[in-house]
């Protein structure tokens, strides 16, 4: 077993953020494999727990999304195999408080799924990106979704329920998701990940140009046409592609990032006083 070595605290300070690098290796003694889920034909790209903790979603290069249910005896059972995407599925993420699942794919779309009559079905397809969608993230309310893509844009989608005041057409009882904002011109390469802070509402991106960017929604917010502005930009956050970013769910402004350079970095982000 390896022992923990938290070293290399290289501090890069600037106005709104500071960087701490850590290579952390957990001791393995407290870690054991409980069960293995089989079914995907090849690489499994992403896995996510539903907020209830009773459902698990996985997605794979085999173009499918699987939903698993966990019972009291910790037995996992496949509840559904969804073949809605026409290409590899890169990422799955759950709605923060509902059993609504989102998936991002190489087929340039985001798809949403929910349970209907004992089976899971695709209830919305979000089309607009011009290349692979790498990741998706819900905001705190779950009414909005951010997606990031190889087309170097981040898109913000908003849910419109049937009979909405704005008059956005819905088919049947399913809500429609409409793109209300397109953040383009900020990123110079593919965007691998997007994270929406549920405490502050800040939106962070991990980009193939080695940079981390944070966007803030300009207030007063117009829900139909929100605008986001670049609040922080660390050009050389890592020495190679940034693959993933994650906000700490308890501590506002604490961001973790990981990169092809083999490092995990922690960032302290402070919201600018006046946008």
């Amino acid at each position: 077993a390896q022992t923990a070595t938290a070293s290399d605290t290289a501090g890069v300070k600037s106005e709104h953020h500071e960087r701490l690098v850590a290579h952390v290796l957990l001791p393995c003694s407290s870690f054991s494999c409980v069960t293995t889920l089989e079914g995907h034909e090849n690489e499994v790209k992403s896995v996510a727990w539903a907020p209830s903790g009773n459902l698990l979603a996985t997605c794979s290069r085999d173009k499918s999304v699987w939903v698993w249910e966990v019972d009291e005896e910790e037995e996992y059972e496949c509840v559904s195999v969804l073949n809605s995407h026409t290409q590899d599925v890169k990422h799955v993420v759950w709605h923060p408080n509902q059993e609504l699942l989102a998936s991002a794919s190489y087929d340039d779309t985001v798809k949403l799924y929910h349970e209907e009559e004992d089976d899971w079905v695709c209830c919305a397809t979000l089309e607009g990106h011009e290349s692979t969608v790498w990741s998706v993230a819900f905001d705190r309310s779950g009414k909005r979704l951010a997606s990031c893509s190889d087309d170097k844009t981040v898109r913000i989608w908003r849910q419109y329920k049937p009979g909405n005041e704005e008059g956005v057409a819905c088919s049947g009882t399913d809500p429609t998701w409409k793109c209300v904002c397109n953040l383009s011109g900020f990123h110079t390469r593919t965007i691998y990940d997007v994270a929406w802070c549920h405490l502050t509402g800040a939106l962070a991106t991990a980009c193939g140009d080695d940079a981390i960017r944070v966007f803030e929604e300009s207030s007063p917010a117009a829900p139909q046409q929100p605008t986001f502005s670049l609040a922080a930009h660390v050009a050389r956050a890592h020495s190679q592609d940034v693959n993933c970013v994650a906000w700490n769910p308890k501590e506002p402004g604490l961001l973790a990032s990981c990169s092809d350079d083999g490092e995990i970095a922690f960032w302290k982000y402070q919201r600018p006083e006046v946008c």
Partner: protein
Amino acid sequence: MLSGGGVGAHPAGSRGLGFRGAMAAASSGADMFDDIVMAEERFHGEGYREGYAEGSHIGVVEGRRHGSLHGAKIGSEVGCYLGFALTWQCLLHKCTDEKNSKKIKVLDSLIGMIRKFPYEDPTYDKLQEDLEKIRGKFKQVCSILNIQSDFRISTERSSLTF
């Protein structure tokens, strides 16, 4: 109408040859040249029509062959799922405890989907979509029954991959 206008502008008989006669000769000459000038276009059109007819015929034959091949593939795939599901349904019906009832429910769902699948209508617009749903349901069944979905179906070394 062009010759009519000409007659009005230049009175006939002012020269040796009557104007009408000259016009007639010129127009028949134009027709002759027309035949030559337009030949390429005409033959092109004729060729196109003949080629189109022949191509349609060959296309129908080829399409028919492709369709029957592709249809047979789908038929054998879906048929295999149905046989598999019915066999397991039969096996599981012997003891219906709680664990089995869940499996039977998923099997019933797969059988229901296959029974609803419209084989006889190749123009059904959700054919591919429904087929993907059946494939997904079959994978779920395999997962729940704890069977590898790429199992070999018979003693022949033919793998169940479509």
